[in-house]
């Protein structure tokens, strides 16, 4: 997965991943802020759907570029990059970034049957932050690669 993500052209996927993590952080922060609100239902983004979209997009990107070992070529050719970007972003509709109320078993711990757990929310948030950090770090590596390629040419 790491080697695939490091290949240039996955910049868009990493951007989507970072964007998703940032939107999800907002939803989880809302859950924590409303932890004592009676009747509040914990919300989340459709994580599984996003992962599926990401996997599809990775497959798509791989199919799009015949030689993944030559990132410079695909980047330097505007004709080959513009088209796939347009299509990859189609795989990430705005609905993927909107909060949903996941179906949950009603709990009996609280009187309003809300199944809130501050621990699972904080855990999800920590994992989410690591995920965002991972995406951003890979993105930064790609930009570094790009800038070093540019400076060596000059």
């Amino acid at each position, binding site marked *: 997965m790491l080697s695939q993500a490091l290949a240039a052209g996955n910049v868009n996927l990493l951007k989507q991943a*970072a964007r998703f*993590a*940032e*939107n999800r*952080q*907002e*939803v*989880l*922060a*809302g*859950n*924590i*802020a*409303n*932890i*004592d*609100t*009676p009747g*509040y239902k914990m*919300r989340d983004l459709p994580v599984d759907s996003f992962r599926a979209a990401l996997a599809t997009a990775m497959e798509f990107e791989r199919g799009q570029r015949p030689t993944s070992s030559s990132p410079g070529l695909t980047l330097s050719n505007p004709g080959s990059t513009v088209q796939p970007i347009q299509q990859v972003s189609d795989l990430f509709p*705005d609905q993927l*970034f*909107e*909060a*949903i109320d996941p179906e949950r078993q009603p709990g009996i711990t609280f009187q309003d049957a809300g199944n809130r757990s*501050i621990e699972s*929310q*904080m855990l999800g*948030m*920590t994992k989410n*932050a690591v995920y*965002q*950090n991972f995406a*951003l*770090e890979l*993105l*930064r590596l790609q*930009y570094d690669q790009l*800038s070093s390629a540019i400076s060596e040419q000059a």
Partner: protein
Amino acid sequence: MFRTLDISASGLMAQRLRMDTIAGNIAQSNTTVNEEGKVAPFQRRLVTFQAQQESSSQPAGGLAVEAQVDLDTQTPFRKVHQPGHPHADADGNVTLPNVNTITEFVNAIEAGRSYEANLSTMEITKGMIQGAFKLLG
């Protein structure tokens, strides 16, 4: 990303308001005269939370919390037999506020923990924002 901080801040404010209310309840737990100087027991205050209504213009995201102070009119006042008390009624009973300090302390612990959870959320969010800034090189 900055909206995330706003949401956590709304949680902080709500829990702090709750803590203020609890502190007031405990401080007034034996008050038998109201602010106008008349003999009336202090009425317990409590904070109600409500999730902020979703605006239709924005995509569904996190919800901020709104807190409001209300008067507790359900819990009965405590009656204590103290004939010598200046505010005792004809039967020698003094009406004390409907504040139960144990309930207040339990709520105070919960408010403190929830406040901390919102603070931790803010720290994590700040880390994410800083990570995004690192992309600038």
